[in-house]
């Protein structure tokens, strides 16, 4: 019993935040909530916040960071201390930070100087897994937005950053509480963050596939097997990467009406490239994909907002799209009965007898072409006859009335 009492007393003592002897010297002054510099900057240090911080908990003393006061005795010290150098302990992070865009801003002596404390805080720094940490996954977006919604110049406007809050990734964080859902640093990196177009940036064309693939592993595999991915691997600048179709900050689920790849919108996304004359010449594919698709029942219904009809992806697939010449392609003539059969049960080989969304019916379907011409002429002739007869009738009535008068 006695032993237990001693043990518990010892335990309680360990729980009470206590400053080391040296730090108590500092706190004599800095405990005063009214301590200010001449300019009015608060010099108060809330002891609880420091002692429960990661540094306080691990017993790092004041002079451990403020090293220019090491061994200093003649208080009060000079007003301006040297900037704390976190890199002395956190050497890896500091090295990564040196190559980052945030550090560049520092070197350039821009109006904005970003340093460790801007993201991590000062005396109250907590471990990144701590719920209250500024860089805890659920808190990070707010931390970044502190500057990126206000102070920072943005190429694409403040809305572009804010769009993240509409994304499925943010929804994952906010609603589902998934710390694995992408926050800013998952895509952009943390200490080593680079400008978007920097070749080493995680979101540059060169790296975006791998960045998204960190979480979406299966999709990265499919993509690299498809026609787009194969050319991407060869270094083509023309093929679409994830963000070209799915958009960036405001990425949403394809089931969401706001998604750029929602069933009724996907045709417009694909046709951005597949209706492009220059690209079609370079890569030898057909243009007018949107128009010819829209002319079909699938396309027309889709334009009217019907989601049950086929869109580009229903037949061509999406991440692993292959050209129809590839026997593994869902649009290879041999596979068409199966592909069409997904919606049209019992689809036979006739589904492949004839072309779909063709530019010129003149060549591909002579009868359809002739029939259209026949009908256009017929309609013009018949309507003209109608109008001539009606004009004659009206003329006669008017003329007769005038004669009577």
């Amino acid at each position: 019993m006695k032993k237990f009492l001693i043990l518990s007393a010892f335990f309680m003592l360990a729980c009470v935040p206590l400053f080391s002897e040296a730090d108590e010297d500092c706190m004599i002054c800095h405990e005063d909530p009214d301590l200010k510099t001449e300019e009015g900057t608060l010099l108060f240090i809330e002891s609880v916040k420091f002692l429960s911080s990661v540094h306080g908990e691990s017993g790092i003393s004041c002079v451990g960071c403020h090293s220019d006061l090491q061994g200093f005795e003649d208080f009060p010290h000079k007003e301006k201390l040297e900037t704390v150098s976190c890199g002395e302990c956190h050497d890896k992070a500091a090295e990564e930070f040196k190559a980052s865009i945030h550090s560049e801003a520092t070197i350039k002596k821009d109006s904005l100087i970003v340093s460790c404390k801007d993201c991590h805080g000062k005396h109250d720094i907590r471990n990144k897994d701590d719920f209250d940490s500024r860089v805890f996954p659920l808190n990070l977006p707010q931390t970044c937005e502190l500057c990126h919604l206000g102070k920072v110049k943005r190429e694409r406007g403040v809305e572009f950053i804010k769009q993240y809050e509409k994304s499925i990734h943010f929804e994952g964080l906010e609603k589902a509480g998934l710390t694995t859902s992408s926050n800013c640093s998952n895509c952009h990196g943390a200490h080593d963050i680079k400008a978007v177009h920097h070749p080493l940036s995680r979101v540059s064309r060169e790296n975006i596939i791998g960045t998204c693939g960190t979480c979406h592993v299966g999709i990265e595999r499919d993509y690299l097997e498809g026609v787009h991915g194969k050319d991407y691997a060869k270094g083509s600048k023309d093929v679409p990467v994830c963000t070209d179709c799915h958009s960036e900050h405001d990425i949403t689920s394809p089931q969401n009406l706001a998604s750029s790849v929602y069933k009724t919108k996907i045709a417009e996304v694909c046709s951005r490239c597949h209706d492009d004359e220059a690209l079609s010449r370079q890569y030898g594919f057909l243009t007018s994909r949107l128009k010819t698709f829209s002319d079909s029942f699938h396309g027309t219904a889709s334009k009217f907002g019907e989601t049950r009809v086929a869109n580009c992806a229903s037949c061509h697939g999406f991440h692993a799209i292959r050209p129809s010449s590839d026997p593994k392609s869902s649009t290879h003539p041999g596979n068409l009965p199966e592909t069409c059969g997904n919606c049209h049960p019992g689809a036979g080989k006739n589904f492949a007898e004839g072309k779909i969304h063709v530019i010129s019916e003149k060549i591909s379907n002579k009868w359809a072409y002739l029939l259209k011409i026949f009908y256009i002429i017929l309609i013009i002739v018949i309507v003209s006859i109608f109008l001539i007869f009606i004009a004659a009738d009206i003329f006669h009535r008017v003329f007769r009335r005038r004669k009577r008068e």
Partner: protein
Amino acid sequence: MSSEKKGLKNNMNALSKEKFLIRDDEIFMRMNLAERIQHFILIITFLILIVTGLPLLFYNIKFLKSLFSIEQSFYTRGILHRAAAVAMILNLIWHTLYTVFTSRGRNNFKEMIPKFKDLKDAFKIFWHNTGLTRFLYRRGILKKFFASHPYWLFEKPPKYGRYNFIEKFEYWAVGWGSVVMIISGFFMWNVELSLSIFPLWAHNIFIILHGYEAILAFLAVIIWHMYNVHLNPESFPMSKIWVNGKITGKELRILHPLEYKKILENRMKADQSNQRE
């Protein structure tokens, strides 16, 4: 002079006799109840089919797109379109049975058969309305020719029977259109069946047929039928025949003189046999 007067008097006698046999305000049934119901069902189903079908051909027009802006409305459109099609087909079957099995229907059909006269009537009414040849004659151009061939002056409009060339054209256009629309529409409805019989390119032909025939039918009704029956100055804003089916003796004499004559002859014969008795 006196002979002319005599002739006029005879004419007057004939006319008053005529008026006695067919009064101007006598009511004839141009469309009986069954025919009016058939016509009404045709209007309703045709309108539904046009509204639910034609916008698909003009998917780029925002106004038409907004017709289907409510969720599920495009799906409902499809159901409505097919329901109206079935109703129209049933109406057509009723009309066919009516035509075959009733004497009035058989008689209407006989009157509806196109004849060479209809082509001539169309030609005549057109030149009568324009009055070009009469204008030339008055100006003294080709005077000799017109004097010896008065037919080409088109002084009088052609005399129509129970159905004139306009009505016959419309009737047979509906007939032809129905056949095209029903066949092509049936295969569009049953894509899987269609493609188990026909290749894709043939199925595409059904789609083209259905669309273009729809445009033709729509224009024919909007321009030709609406003007000739309802919107022309004589019957504007509309002819009431499709509602009450009634036509007066006077209207019959002016619009359908040959039918009028036929009725008159029948009544004269009956009148004479009565007198003999």
